[in-house]
């Protein structure tokens, strides 16, 4: 019961670690009339201290690496990290670039990967809904 109610209000934090803006805009598109993720209680909070789900887009550049770690540490548990798009998942679109760390999971633990370059809003939505299931498990574990 508690887990059920708790996971109905995932507040998201979106952070761009060097993406091309394609996935960022799809994250924004989620908030708007056509996709409207507020149906699931999702709100963009833009504040790590309020967030539950971190939506990370882009291959992690050297300069944003430390910022990403800070954001991750500031987010209170239980939390969920979703890597949106191919470049956040493994950084392959920017394979030749010298200034990227190749994927979010090289820097912080990632729970879910969303494929696509750029990933479609439907895919992100699907990931969030799947993520809510995982988040529920995390809440249960935290209760024990």
């Amino acid at each position, binding site marked *: 019961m508690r887990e059920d109610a708790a996971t109905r209000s995932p507040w998201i934090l979106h952070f761009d670690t060097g993406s091309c803006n394609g996935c960022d805009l799809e994250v924004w598109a989620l908030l708007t009339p056509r996709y409207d993720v507020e149906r699931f209680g999702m709100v963009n909070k833009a504040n790590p201290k309020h967030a539950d789900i971190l939506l990370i887009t882009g291959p992690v*550049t*050297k*300069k944003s*690496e430390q910022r990403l770690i800070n954001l991750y540490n500031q987010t209170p548990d239980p939390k969920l990290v979703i890597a949106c798009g191919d470049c956040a998942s493994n950084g392959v679109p920017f394979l030749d670039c*010298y*200034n990227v760390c190749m994927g979010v999971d090289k820097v912080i633990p990632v729970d879910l990967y969303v494929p696509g370059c750029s990933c479609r809003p439907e895919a992100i939505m699907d990931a969030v809904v799947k993520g809510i299931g995982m988040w529920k498990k995390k809440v249960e574990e935290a209760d024990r």
Partner: protein
Amino acid sequence: MSAAEIDLRKKLERMSLKSPRPRLIDVIAADRRDGTYDLIYVFHHEGAIVDHRYVVNEDDDITSIADLYAGALCMEREIIDMYGLKFNGVTGGFLLDPSSPKNPLRQPRKEVAKDV
């Protein structure tokens, strides 16, 4: 101020005389692979691209044109980051972090540059 910069300023003055001042589009640097670099000032003048090309050495002190065009500052800072050239009174650290590779666009010195 080196001969190249004096030349550039003179050319700019001459361009401004006839018609409206040219608009600076970009400052481009390119490695010639022999320790010298192409420095290209690209202007939009009378509806078309006009460029002034100079060859500079690795350790030349280049005079910044930020006093003529404030927007040139960021382009010069980028060149400092990418190639390690020196501009008077301009500091780098525009794009690169201390943890990034230094002067990433410098190319290996294996051959003499082809004629362009």
